[in-house]
């Protein structure tokens, strides 16, 4: 672990990354299971292994792209990192503090630094509150600013995302999907947090609006020195926003690398399949790679050994027996796959 970060640190300096070489967020062996209860006494009979030993790091000022399909646990991971859910074990160190075990008062203070942008622009804003109230609510909770001061800050936030102070008095339903997402971004920004978790922020938007929002997020990151964890289910969106990419499958990270590496040389068979599955808007392009068979197994009953082995085109006998350990195949590029186990050793 130490060797990896040292290598990464050196690599970062060599690449001339201006962003701090400090880790803003370190997730270590995070586990979150959801019990499935049955019987009159509600005893747990099984567990949904939503997040099963995830370790990740995000550097200040950078964007970590987290990609995976349904059931992979990325949504749960996001909620645990933001303390909307309680982790079962493992640690989440944010700005030097372990937030999993934080006291409620510390937690409230920490919430100023971590905010979230939701996927659905229609249900993420309270339809009965004016936009001004929605955006200034965080200020009301965390600061002692007076109402005019709060509204002034809210107006500022609105302007930064491309809307105007007139919009303070309007209701969410008067805006389009893309505009509502901008309001959500304004709300997340108003406390000037360090980390913003973007939970599929463009999936529910029209195609011609997606790029507007992605560009906006990129601009805001530069202007405010933000760190993003960007969750998406499509690698094509991830490609354009991330500095590092982590691919999740059934509660585990299967591959984690700088964005360029992942897209140039994807190592894990699942990553390759994900990329091959995305239809490219070019009629002349042939589909490279094999279409994955079968469905994503249920996180209630993950396959033994490597969780991907039931769908893997390059499965070997060891895959159904032993879980692969994540190892570094090139500087900063980690893969959890038996194909590379020997190579690293």
């Amino acid at each position, binding site marked *: 672990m130490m060797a990896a970060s040292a290598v990464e640190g050196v690599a970062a300096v060599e690449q001339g990354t201006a962003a701090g070489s400090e880790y803003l967020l370190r997730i270590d062996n995070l586990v979150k299971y959801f019990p499935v209860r049955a019987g009159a006494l509600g005893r747990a009979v099984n567990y949904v292994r939503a997040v099963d030993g995830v370790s990740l790091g995000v550097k200040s000022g950078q964007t970590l792209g987290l990609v995976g399909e349904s059931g992979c646990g990325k949504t749960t991971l996001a909620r645990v990192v*933001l303390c*909307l859910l309680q982790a079962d074990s493992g640690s989440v160190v944010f700005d030097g503090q372990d937030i999993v075990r934080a006291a409620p008062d510390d937690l*409230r203070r920490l*919430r*100023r630094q*971590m*905010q*979230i942008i*939701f*996927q*659905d622009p*229609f*249900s*993420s*804003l*309270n*339809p*009965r*509150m004016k936009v001004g109230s929605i955006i200034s*609510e*965080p200020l009301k*909770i*965390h600061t002692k600013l007076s109402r005019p001061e709060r509204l002034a800050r809210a107006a500022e936030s609105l302007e930064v995302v491309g809307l105007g102070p007139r919009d303070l008095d309007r*209701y969410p*339903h*008067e805006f389009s999907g893309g505009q509502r997402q901008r309001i*959500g971004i304004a*709300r997340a920004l108003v406390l000037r947090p360090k980390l913003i978790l973007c939970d599929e922020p463009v999936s529910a938007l029209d195609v011609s609006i997606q790029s507007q929002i992605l560009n906006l997020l990129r601009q805001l990151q530069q202007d405010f020195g933000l760190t993003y964890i960007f969750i998406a289910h499509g690698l094509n969106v991830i490609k354009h926003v991330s500095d590092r990419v982590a691919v999740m499958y059934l509660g585990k990270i299967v591959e984690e690398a700088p964005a360029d590496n992942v897209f140039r040389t994807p190592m894990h068979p699942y990553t390759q399949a994900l990329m091959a599955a995305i239809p490219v808007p070019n009629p002349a392009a042939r589909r490279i790679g094999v279409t994955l068979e079968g469905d994503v197994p249920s996180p209630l009953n993950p396959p033994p050994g490597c969780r991907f082995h039931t769908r893997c085109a390059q499965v070997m006998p060891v895959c159904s027996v032993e879980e692969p350990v994540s190892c570094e195949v090139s500087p900063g590029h980690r893969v959890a796959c038996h194909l590379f186990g020997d190579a690293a050793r």
Partner: protein
Amino acid sequence: MATVPAPAKGKIRRSALAGGLRALRRSKMMTLGLGIMSLVCLVALLAPWIATHDPLYLDPMNRLQAPGPDNWLGTDDVGRDVFSRVVYGSRVSLLVGALVVLSSNLIGTLIGLMSGYYDKVDKVVMRVMDGLMAFPTTLLAIAMMAALGARMSNVIIALSIVYIPRVARVVRGVVLTVRELAYVEAAVAIGAPAWKIMLFHILPNCLDPIIVQSSFIFAQSVLSEAALSYLGVGIPPWIPSWGNIMTGGRLFINAAPWMTWFPGLAIIICVLGLNLFGDGLRDLVDPRLRGVL
């Protein structure tokens, strides 16, 4: 994408007045119901001016008179003017109905909010509510009145207890849905305390079903109060209530049927008005609710 494109999920919270007027134009039921209710309310308010006689004035010489020019709806077995009694009876019905709606909504909403938001509270409290709801309303009310004693305040208390579980159940249902919505999660992420979330984010979204149900609870209260008074365990006999008047008329159904008909008719009209209003309101509120949430 829906088959019917949703009109800019917007136009709903225009001016409440404009929306209300347009609603009335569209729903004849609601308009009719509102009209009837307004009439009843007016009668109750202006009772001292509308009533032709003192409802408590005994005139045994004039007993069991058929409806005529002096007594528009006739007199009862002790000579009291039925018309005036029915007019004053509207006050009782409306008062009881309103107070029952108010208290059952207040307490029921509180219980529903807590149950919907806190799972542990839910398990215990809803069992109690289910238990209460298992009793037929009238029976439960009678049992409580028998325990408490026949007084107007006790009628209100008993009926409130009967309807609290129903309000709680409806509110709990809405809370369970709303608390999963993203904007509630957003409020938690911002660091809002639980009471703020319940008050400002969840409660406003419960209002629509509460309002709709209120009109039905009102109607039911009027009926229940009448039933209780008729059975003698409701409003004490010296206060004119529609149920009481009918009790008196029971023995004279052949001799003086007007003692039973007219209060009965009043009950029918009042409850009909309330139900029509509630039906129209519900039809109006539902499909739009699906769009807004």
